[in-house]
């Protein structure tokens, strides 16, 4: 199935700067005038990476802290579910059968 690459996959492939650096070195070796274009590409790439990092959700914490928070939230949901279940299943008054 020819799946369309998702944004995430594209980002995974594109996040390395080495190919551009390699292209710049090649251009310098060849004394190619495209070196300025490649340099500008590197700058743009770095700037885009910065913007992408700024827009990424959930990275203001370290993975450990995030996992800790996740566990806390799961625990909260579990506790609250138990509490509600307890109250709902609690038969406070025994209704006498006629």
């Amino acid at each position, binding site marked *: 199935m020819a799946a369309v690459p998702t944004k995430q996959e594209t980002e995974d492939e594109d996040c*390395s700067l080495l190919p551009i650096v390699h292209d710049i070195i090649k251009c*310098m070796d060849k004394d190619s005038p495209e070196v300025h274009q490649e340099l500008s590409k590197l700058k743009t790439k770095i700037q885009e990476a*910065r913007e992408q990092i700024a827009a990424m959700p959930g*990275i*203001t914490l*370290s993975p450990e802290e995030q996992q800790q928070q996740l566990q806390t939230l799961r625990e*909260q949901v579990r506790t609250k*579910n138990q509490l*509600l279940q307890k109250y709902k299943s609690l038969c406070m008054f025994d209704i006498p059968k006629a």
Partner: protein
Amino acid sequence: MAVSDRSTKERLLSVLDDLEVLSRELIEMLALSRTQKLPQPGEDTQIVELLVQRDAEFQELMKVALEQGKVHQEMQLLEKEVEKRDSDIQQLQKQLKEAEHILATAVYQAKEKLKSIEKARKGSISSEEIIKYAHRISASNAVCAPLNWVPGDPRRPYPTDLEMRSGMLGHMSNLPTNGVNGHLPGDALAAGRLPDVLTPQYPWQSSDVSVGMLPPHHSNDFSLEPPGHNKENEDDVEAMSTDSSSSSSDSD
């Protein structure tokens, strides 16, 4: 590890800065070596190694950041779940409070009822005694006239003429309290149906006025004036003592 204390964002930006600096240094070094034709043994290799290392680190961190994004989504879902549960719990708490209020009121009312039951139990009177008392009241026709009551029959409910005379109004009009049989004669006398035997003779009634001579309109026919009668309270006494007689005479 000191690195793990920092957030992923800080680490990513730091590595990205390193990458920028290293790539610039490498390019500058290469450009410089090309123009000056000076060999740079080892130094460029070192920078390239560092650049590769940092780039690998950056890619690794990007993967971690993407994973954290997924975890963040999960956390948001969990937060929504927690909010929903909180609202459910608050709703339940509100309902429980209402139920508590209703039950407290019911308990208070029940306690009050128990108190009054206890009070009634302490001062209990047997039903036989109450029935006896009721019989005693009804036997004297104090509350209801007998079924076969006819005008002139002295058996009639209170207030009778005697009670009226004993009351404050009677005292105000200086009526004597020793009325006969304690009933109002007006209606019967006015109607002229009372047998002579039953015709009461009142001290305030003129002895020479016979029943048969009573005109149909009796307003001033009775000699209601007692010895100490004064004119100003005449109307009161008349209204008090001849109310039934006037209605019966009117009906006739």
